[in-house]
């Protein structure tokens, strides 16, 4: 099958049977949007955007919280030949100044011709027009009026399809430019014979936010190209009551659902026996796990707990991906229990080799296979000079193929570095074994002391073994801020305040015991001091920056904790408020 553009895929899907269904807070169907109707709505939005003066090829920033509105606007912009750049909606309407400050750099670098948003948000987002020279208007989707386009705009496969602003620094955002060809290559690989093998009978179920690549590309756009159905659940509903996700899978007979590692942990911990009794997960054939490091223990505990509900460990699909590679990089074979490689932890850090532990005394590390690259795509592991390494040698993961992005928007300097030598430099460390990829950490996070490499994850996991350390709130990094050799610093949050006096000593002891590493300093910080990225990875560099700047202990330094969770919640709260405002307006109207 030859690749098609996103508008062409939508037009083709409109003739088939798939679509999107939106579930309410309890996981019951609230509204349904077959692709045939989605095309009509998108063409109406496209006509409105054209009449608002937007020309094909121009970029529009999208700040639309509600999933249904977001999808029709995103696809409407695409049908008009525009390049949408989805951005996270504001935290709270009463804190919009901070939001404007944080979002301004992304809007500026995107050179957006317009900001497309909702009526309630438009009131606070007007500042984009006066502060960003390229922005000619801030458009409210409810006010879009015009003649619907007769057909989707002609765009080329090598034209940009949308911009993704990846997690990380807000002051220096990096816009990932994907082409229609990238998107088509990746989603057809995901859905195809070496991927999910999607069929008409499949049902996707997703609570992932659509401002996140796994939610947008993985759950929304893949089914658009494949012509199947996906159910969307509010992220907030899932976070409030994790069982709602599993109930939605039960009720809709869901077969495909992806989530980060933490979501599986949350279900293991929070789903009650009474909720368990209502679950039937026997049709769930692909339980994807990605967007953050996959832990063998998490998968094992989830599989054990939900076996009674018909869940099978063979359904797990631990995978690896990144925004610069559109989304997915590797998948393991379908319906195979997660493959766990038990290796010598010492050899992994000192010799950068993944070898079988020689005896019972050596420290072990358990890594989960993320599978193999898709046909037409290549994965290679290379040393710091770019030379390919043999199997079971740890190096940087390099990628090649039709899913590799075109570059960072208006940042040729960064693009040249990322695509040096014709390979995408992932910045992730890993190794191949029997052709399957195992992820060990990030290149820039690696701690090097006396020529030895340490993976911060290992130290963090050991720190997390100490009962008084808050789950998932341990960050390790190396620093030369004090001059001299690199110092290893571990920052932890206590499970409860005040922290026990000997907490730092116990963390240091446990890390030495588990990894053989002597940590130079353990810093115990107040709850909420450790931020995460949108994909859930601990933001080591930010903690390190704060440590080096000497502001780590400052109680006012508390920003986001779990950024994915935080953004999801805030986004949904804004949506809820907007909804409440709408209802209130309607009520007032009736009263008159």
């Amino acid at each position, binding site marked *: 099958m030859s690749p098609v553009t996103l508008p062409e895929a939508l037009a083709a899907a409109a003739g088939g049977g798939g679509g999107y269904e939106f579930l309410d807070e309890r996981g019951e169907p609230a509204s349904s949007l077959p692709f045939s109707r989605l095309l009509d709505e998108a063409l109406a939005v496209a006509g409105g955007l054209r009449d608002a003066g937007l020309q094909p090829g121009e970029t529009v920033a999208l700040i639309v919280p509600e999933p249904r509105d977001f999808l029709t606007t995103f696809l409407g912009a695409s049908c008009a030949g525009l390049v949408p750049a989805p951005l996270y909606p504001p935290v709270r309407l009463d804190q919009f100044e901070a939001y404007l400050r944080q979002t301004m750099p992304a809007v500026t670098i995107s050179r957006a011709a317009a900001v497309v948003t909702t009526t309630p948000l438009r009131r606070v987002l007007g500042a984009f027009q006066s502060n960003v020279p390229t922005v000619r208007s801030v458009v409210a989707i409810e006010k879009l009026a015009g003649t619907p386009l007769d057909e989707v705009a002609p765009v080329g496969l090598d034209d940009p399809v949308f911009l993704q602003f990846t997690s990380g620094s807000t002051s220096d955002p990096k816009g990932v430019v994907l082409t229609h060809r990238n998107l088509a290559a990746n989603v057809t690989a995901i859905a195809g014979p070496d991927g999910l093998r999607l069929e008409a009978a499949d049902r996707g179920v997703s609570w992932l936010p659509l401002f996140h690549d796994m939610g947008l590309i993985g759950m929304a756009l893949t089914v658009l190209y494949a012509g199947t159905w996906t159910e969307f659940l509010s992220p*907030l509903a899932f*976070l409030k009551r994790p069982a709602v996700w599993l109930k939605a899978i039960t009720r809709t007979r869901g077969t495909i659902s992806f989530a980060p590692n933490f979501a599986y942990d949350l279900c293991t911990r929070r789903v009650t026996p009474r909720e368990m009794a209502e679950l039937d997960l026997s049709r769930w054939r692909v339980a994807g796990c990605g967007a953050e490091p996959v832990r063998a223990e998490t998968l094992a505990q989830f599989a054990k707990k939900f076996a009674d509900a018909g869940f099978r460990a063979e359904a797990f699909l631990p995978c690896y991906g990144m925004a610069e590679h559109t989304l997915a990089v590797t998948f393991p074979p379908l319906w195979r229990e997660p493959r766990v490689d038990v290796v010598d932890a010492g050899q992994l850090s000192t010799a950068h080799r993944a070898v079988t532990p020689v005896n019972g005394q050596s420290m072990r590390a358990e890594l989960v296979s993320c599978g193999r690259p898709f046909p037409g795509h290549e994965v290679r592991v290379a040393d710091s000079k770019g030379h390919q390494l043999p199997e079971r040698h740890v190096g940087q993961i390099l990628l090649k193929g039709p899913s590799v992005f075109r570059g960072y928007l208006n940042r040729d300097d960064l693009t040249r570095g990322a695509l040096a030598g014709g390979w995408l430099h992932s910045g992730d460390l890993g190794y191949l074994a029997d052709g399957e990829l195992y992820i060990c950490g990030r290149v820039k996070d690696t701690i090097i002391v006396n020529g030895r490499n340490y993976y911060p994850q290992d130290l963090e996991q050991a720190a997390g073994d100490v009962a008084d350390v808050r789950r998932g709130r341990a960050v390790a990094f190396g620093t030369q801020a004090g001059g001299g050799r690199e110092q290893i610093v571990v920052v932890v949050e206590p*499970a409860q305040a005040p922290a026990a006096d000997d907490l730092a000593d116990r963390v240091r002891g446990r890390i030495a015991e588990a990894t053989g590493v002597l940590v130079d300093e353990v810093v115990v910080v107040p709850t909420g001091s450790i931020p995460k990225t949108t994909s859930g990875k601990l933001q080591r560099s930010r903690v390190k920056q704060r440590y080096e700047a000497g502001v780590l202990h400052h109680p006012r330094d508390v920003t986001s904790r*779990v950024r994915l*969770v935080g953004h999801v919640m805030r986004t949904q*709260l804004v949506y*809820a408020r907007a*909804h409440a405002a709408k209802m209130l307006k309607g009520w007032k109207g009736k009263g008159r």
Partner: protein
Amino acid sequence: MTPLEADQVGRDVLGVVRRLCRRPVDVVAHSKLQADLGFDSLQTLELVAALEDEFGVTVPLERMPQIQTVGEAAACVRSLLAENARP
């Protein structure tokens, strides 16, 4: 603000918060869930779900931003119970 011990709802809300709170601190009506009691955003949602189970109510999404303190959680539950009692 109504003292939490003044009615059964307040006492029950207090019980739920104490059960979920991991800090050894006194829980009072004006205790802030996040700053004083150490709840993170996920635990705050866990508390809302626990209150729903305890009182048989559903806290609508738009009410959640109003729940920052223990007293506000109790007030929210009281008003939801009152709304349910109305014919």
